[in-house]
């Protein structure tokens, strides 16, 4: 085992050891933790994981002994919301993920290295690749090649997870042309908004971004989608690709600093969570810390801005609607009431509260692909809560949750009865955009 070579002091410095002392092990996080509830093991609870990180830092267990529970954490951070002593779980988790990534680097198989390189370093961060993927998906769907391929079972050679995700991926629309520079003059009442489009979002759900921009414009905002923006770095950050995540953060901070926006707005719960925590990517003494903090303060979820605007609802939507909040929107961005407020204000809607709606759906970035089986256990628990009162529409606020809910609906055989939409889509429909 390589841990024998790991210097204990060095490890203690890298893991958020001091932060583990804030945990008084009361266990109040247990009922809020989706993996604890679904797997039924203390090691897969926030309290259990914090204890393992502490013991690893003290050299009482090897870092390999904490690997499995850390890998299987969704990072939904629901535990932080219920913690009575404000333990910084996110910080502890990230430190453990980074340490594991570092010590695993050399053990990784060539295949895995290539895959990580392609996903984190090339695909997600490269606009052209994503555009190509987007177009590919678009034409793939449009030409019905997907059906042909599915019939030919070629897709079955892909891992089951990707195969399943492919089958529920919605029809892709190409993004519209967007305003990408500030107009010369600003009217006084107008909010100037920099739109953060995201990478996966702008590929699979580009139309949601387009609708969001239109709604902001109808509400009287000037919306600019600057070209210099890039991937937020959240997925890399959660996967222990720290350096890469930091570089992506710096690029975005620099890009948006050149403009004077009142807000930077996104419609992606997960990316938004990374953006509002960019300062956590840096050491407090780093000159980037304050810059990141200023940037983070400007970032808002679309629902926060829309809830302040006068939206022209012209169409009644007479449907039973449930809301599945994005964990990162709830627990990190702390945006809880706004989406519900707008949703309930849409004429005709009957709101059906989802039982235990704050439990993660198991999507969690790329968790549902890399830990597919576990993710399905969590998803099944979520869907079980829907069974007594099936809505006609499930509203989400994050592309990952959106895809996972589509998958859940399909697994339950409800695809003909239940529609999954982004909050922006249902608002746009009510405004007849």
């Amino acid at each position: 085992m390589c841990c024998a070579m790991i210097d204990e002091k060095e490890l203690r410095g890298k893991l958020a050891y001091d932060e583990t002392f804030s945990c008084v092990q009361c266990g109040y996080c247990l009922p809020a933790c989706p993996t604890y509830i679904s797997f039924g093991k203390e090691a897969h609870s926030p309290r259990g994981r914090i204890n393992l990180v502490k013991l690893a830092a003290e050299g009482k267990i090897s870092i390999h002994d904490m690997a499995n529970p850390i890998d299987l954490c969704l990072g939904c951070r629901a535990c932080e919301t219920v913690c009575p002593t404000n333990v910084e779980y996110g910080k502890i988790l990230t430190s453990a993920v980074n340490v594991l990534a570092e010590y695993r680097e050399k053990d990784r198989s060539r295949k895995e290295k290539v895959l990580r390189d392609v996903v984190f370093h090339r695909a997600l961060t490269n606009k052209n690749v994503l555009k190509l993927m987007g177009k590919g998906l678009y034409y793939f769907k449009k030409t019905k090649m997907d059906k042909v391929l599915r019939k030919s079972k070629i897709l079955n050679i892909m891992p089951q997870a990707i195969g399943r995700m492919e089958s529920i991926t919605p029809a892709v629309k190409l993004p519209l042309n967007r305003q990408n520079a500030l107009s010369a003059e600003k009217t006084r009442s107008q909010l100037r908004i920099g739109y953060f489009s995201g990478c996966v979002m702008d590929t699979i759900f580009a139309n949601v971004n387009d609708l969001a921009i239109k709604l902001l414009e109808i509400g009287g905002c000037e919306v600019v989608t600057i070209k210099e923006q890039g991937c937020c770095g959240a997925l890399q950050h959660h996967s222990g690709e720290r350096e890469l995540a930091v570089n992506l953060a710096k690029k975005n901070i620099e890009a948006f600093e050149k403009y004077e926006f009142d807000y930077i707005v996104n419609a992606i719960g997960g990316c938004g969570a990374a953006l509002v925590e960019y300062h956590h990517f840096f050491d407090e003494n780093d000159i980037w810390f304050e810059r990141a903090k200023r940037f983070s303060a400007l970032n808002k979820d679309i629902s926060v801005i829309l809830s302040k605007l006068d939206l022209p609802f012209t169409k009644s939507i007479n449907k039973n609607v449930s809301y599945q909040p994005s964990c990162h929107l709830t627990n990190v961005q702390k945006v809880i009431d706004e989406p519900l407020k707008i949703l309930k204000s849409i004429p005709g809607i009957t709101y059906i509260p989802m039982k235990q709606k704050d439990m993660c759906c198991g999507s969690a970035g790329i968790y549902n692909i890399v830990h597919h089986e576990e993710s399905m256990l969590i998803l099944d628990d979520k869907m079980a809560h829907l069974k007594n009162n099936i809505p006609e529409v499930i509203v989400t606020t994050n592309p990952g949750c959106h895809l996972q809910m589509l998958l859940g609906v399909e697994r339950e055989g409800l695809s003909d009865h239940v529609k999954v939409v982004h909050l922006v889509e249902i608002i746009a429909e009510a405004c007849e955009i």
Partner: protein
Amino acid sequence: MNGHIEVIVEKLIEAFGDSSRVLTEVQDLYSYSFDASFGIYKPEIICQPIATDEVVELIKLAAQYKIPVVARGTGTSLSGGPLPVKGGIVVDFSLWDTKLEIHPDDLIAVVSPGVITSKINDKAIEFGLMYPPDPSSAHVSTIGGNLAENAGGPRGLKYGVTKDYVLGLEVVTAEGKVIRTGGRTMKNVTGYDLTKLIVGSEGTLCIITEATLRLVPRPLATKTAMVLFDEIVDSGHAISKVLRSGIMPAKMEIMDRHSIIAVEEYASLGLPIDVEAILLIELDGHHQAINEEMIRVEEACMSVNARSVIVAKDDREAEQLWQARRLVSPAIVKIKPTKISEDATVPRSKIPEMFQRLKEIREKYNVHLVVFGHAGDGNLHPNIIADQRDEEEMHRVEQAVEEIFEAAVSLGGTLSGEHGIGLMKSPFMEMELGKDGLHMMKLIKDAWDPQNILNPGKIFPEPGQRFVLRND
């Protein structure tokens, strides 16, 4: 170390018919090595039974190989009840939450040991009933753990504690026999009251596999008041005064000045920081009755020099008043991370004197001691805030806690009102019970568990055992 672990694991898996509920990985052994108190004790095996048969099989194996068996709910214990101090098998009951039946006409609930405590009350409410015990961890803790530790809670003042709601139990003995104690009736005097003996025995006599619980009609309404005091001693007098004016509040909770300041600094709720104590009083019953009673509560408090009484107009305002109490824990750990939560309890008349003793202890040992808790039943919660990485400070804390125990016992009180003895308080048992009293308890233990396989190392002090609050 027991040399038969591999054999036991193999036989357990066979008995359970499911290897996923028998755990031996390092990550699991360490994850059941702690609770909400102090110390890390690594067990050798974890198993997660979901049926009485499985418990019988595992006890038989433990008896055959003389290996310790330690029952555990969700590990919220503040006294070390579920710590496997002698290693062995930790029996995690948290998966066994399958039975929760309400029999509304008999006013009883029948539950399996892993049911989360608050879910019993949630279900009872559907039938217009209530399960009163409400430890603050009720939304996390299991009923099995509550039974083993005889848990209390704020409502203990009016409604009593867990033991007051247990009519019958199904248990597995140290020999692996299944017995039933008590029954489903309110009255039952057939033989010794084994039910009450087992409740609070902290897993040292047998393993509880099912409980029949008593429910009561749910009160129609509640009403809350916040009472401010310039002198903490007056708040003690107010408690007695209210109780002697013909009113039994559901809850009477206290916050001392140190906890008020901590909450204000933490959350700025607008609490007055120049008072010495706040009492939160909740009445429950018919709304007309509690409106009348609240007037009497105000009069009683004002007659013993309360500064003022704030009565919540509705449930929303009541919620805001209770927020102050709820924020004490998060607020005080902002000062320092380690929280030593004690529950020494004194007769109600001695509350003012206990406050004085606590003040002296705070000064003598220079520790950060705050007092809050269920003042109405004399069950104060002196909490000391420290940093467990500071050895010198922890030593002073240990001395201060010892003196808190001594103060409580010398005032005619007890070491523990509701947290249990577990590992932490066993060195003080003789101080409260006397040599002969403790010996009689030991005779019971020896008769029920002659091989000492059930939660060994608990309740009874080991020769030379000292009080420690450290993890190493």
